């Protein structure tokens, strides 16, 4: 059994929570549908977004160069980190050289991927995640389980307990408004005492050197504008050519993510504040490699909306933590093999190939095809269990010969009717969550032979 299945089973052990998780994400997915349907040229927009990203990736060195020049002209300090160690080092150096010890941070999957928090804490800095969901996860010392909704796997009672322990809210209190207000108060103190603010980046515009960050809470802005030092950490694929392209992406992002027409705040940072310093760190961390891989390149189009997670029947029923990756869900499974082929082994199989992810993705990444591709790659490394291989071989044989097929059919129906437990034994993992059907008395062939004459006119 794969790591994913094992962890999924643990998640499913709490049946009520699992059902809530499934229903809630489906609700988010339905909101997305309504938002998408309200836009006339939605499919056209997806096509444009995909084209812009392809073009940006095709010419990425040129756009990065243009971006760096523009950003420097704007007064920003631009650095390039080829891997996570360099990013950690740069950030620590910037903080030290500016005498900044207290740091607030808004959401950034990149810094999560690069282990920035852990490193900075080890180095003696205080670093506070300010997105409410991420703040909850940081207090609990757990990783986020979703890229847009970091605490979606938790019930409000659990969050209430966490806040009671760390923020001194009343014991047993779990009202979301009460808890959110407590967090607002705690985080305001952090914002106003921070000496530096770190943000992730949604889009970086080559033409103007502008950094764009989208949030609903306003936490990126509270941090950036209150602290004298602002540090924006972006991976290379956040580059888009021009300001006009933002028209396409801002229309797609929030609608795909939460079903809102746009995030509450779409912030454009171009120049540092008066007397402030603005740093931009452009991080590669394995992306150049993906750029020249047959499936890897298109994973770099991702705008991190989370829609593929909300729609995925496996994600909804197994929870983000079951993937064991910084980014879970379909896109996470498509990226994981690049990060560590071995630990990613089960992930492309945690997929029903229903294609829902590819159909919903605002930048049209062919996610299901990628997962299918990785299954084959992984099989060639013999990571498929022998039993599954054997079943597939037998199936190929049976399906190829009508005689075998008919024989297998009647055998199957016979056992299913009279000795169902015999089928259950070898299929234990499969039947745990499913019922075996009652077989029909006649086969389709028999039915057809009897009825064909009646229905032809």
């Amino acid at each position, binding site marked *: 059994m794969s790591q994913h299945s094992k962890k999924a089973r643990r998640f499913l052990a709490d049946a009520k929570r699992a059902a809530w998780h499934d229903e809630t994400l489906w609700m988010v997915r339905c909101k997305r549908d309504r938002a998408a349907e309200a836009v006339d040229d939605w499919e056209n927009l997806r096509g444009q977004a995909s084209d812009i990203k392809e073009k940006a990736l095709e010419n990425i060195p040129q756009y990065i160069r243009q971006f760096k020049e523009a950003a420097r002209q704007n007064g920003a300090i631009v650095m390039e980190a080829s891997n996570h160690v360099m990013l950690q080092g740069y950030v620590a150096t910037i903080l030290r050289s500016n005498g900044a010890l207290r740091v607030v941070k808004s959401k950034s999957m990149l810094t999560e991927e690069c282990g920035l928090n852990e490193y900075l804490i080890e180095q003696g800095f205080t670093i506070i995640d300010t997105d409410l969901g991420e703040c909850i996860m940081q207090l609990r010392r757990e990783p986020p389980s979703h890229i847009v909704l970091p605490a979606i796997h938790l019930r409000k009672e659990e969050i209430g307990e966490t806040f009671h322990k760390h923020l001194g809210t009343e014991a047993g209190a779990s009202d979301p408004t009460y808890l959110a207000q407590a967090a607002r108060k705690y985080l305001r103190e952090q914002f106003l005492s921070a000496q530096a603010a770190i943000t992730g980046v949604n889009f970086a515009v080559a033409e103007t050197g502008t950094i764009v960050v989208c949030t609903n*809470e306003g936490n990126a802005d509270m941090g950036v504008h209150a602290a004298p030092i602002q540090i924006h950490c972006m991976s290379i694929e956040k580059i888009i050519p021009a300001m*006009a392209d933002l*028209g396409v992406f801002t229309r797609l992002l929030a609608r795909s993510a939460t079903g809102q027409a746009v995030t*509450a705040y779409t912030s454009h940072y171009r120049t540092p504040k008066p007397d402030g310093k603005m740093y931009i760190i452009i991080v590669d961390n394995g992306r150049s490699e993906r750029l020249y891989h047959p499936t890897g390149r298109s994973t770099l189009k991702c705008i991190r909306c989370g829609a593929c997670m909300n729609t995925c029947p496996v994600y909804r029923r197994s929870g983000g933590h079951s993937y064991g990756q910084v980014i879970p869900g379909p896109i996470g499974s498509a990226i994981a093999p690049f990060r560590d082929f071995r630990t990613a082994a089960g992930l492309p199989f945690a997929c029903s190939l229903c294609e829902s992810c590819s159909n919903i993705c605002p930048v049209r990444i062919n996610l299901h095809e990628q997962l299918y591709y990785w299954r084959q790659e992984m099989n060639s490394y013999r990571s498929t269990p022998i039993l599954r291989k054997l079943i597939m071989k037998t199936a190929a044989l049976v399906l190829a010969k009508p005689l075998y097929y008919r024989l297998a059919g009647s055998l199957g129906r016979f056992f299913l009717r009279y000795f169902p437990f015999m089928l259950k034994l070898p299929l234990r993992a499969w039947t745990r969550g499913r019922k075996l059907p009652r077989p029909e008395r006649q086969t389709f062939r028999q039915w057809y032979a009897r009825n064909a004459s009646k229905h032809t006119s």
Partner: protein
Amino acid sequence: MSKTILVNNFIKNVRTAGAEVLFSPGEAAVSTDRWPGLLDFSKADLRLQYQTLENSEQWTDIAHALFCSRLGVAENGAVWLEDADMPHRILPFITRHLILRLATDSLVADMHEAYAKLGQDNFGFGVFISGPSKTADIEQSLVYGAHGAKELTVLLCD
């Protein structure tokens, strides 16, 4: 798109985003009776006083702050603010109640038109704001005022 449709769409979407819309017959509607302690940053002399963040109390106690905008987006109720509209970048975020004044002539249909209108303008910082600050991070229950403004009013004038 006719102007009436544009204005109606805008109003609908501002409300969906959790903000209220008031029609302002000029300056008269904006009063300190309605909003005690209102800071009207459309006034140049007030802008001068709030340029630096010195004593944080002065900032955290701001209840009502008003800014003038030159661009609103009908499809999502977003209103644009940039450096020129505010003496300090944190103000629209730190105030408890944010009031944005906008002329109906400043409305565009969608984000494509919005960015076209911004064109090559060299703003140092600019933001589209759609509704008050919000979070649904606790069990997907919507709560206003996660960090930024808890309430938002858009004042539409002709």
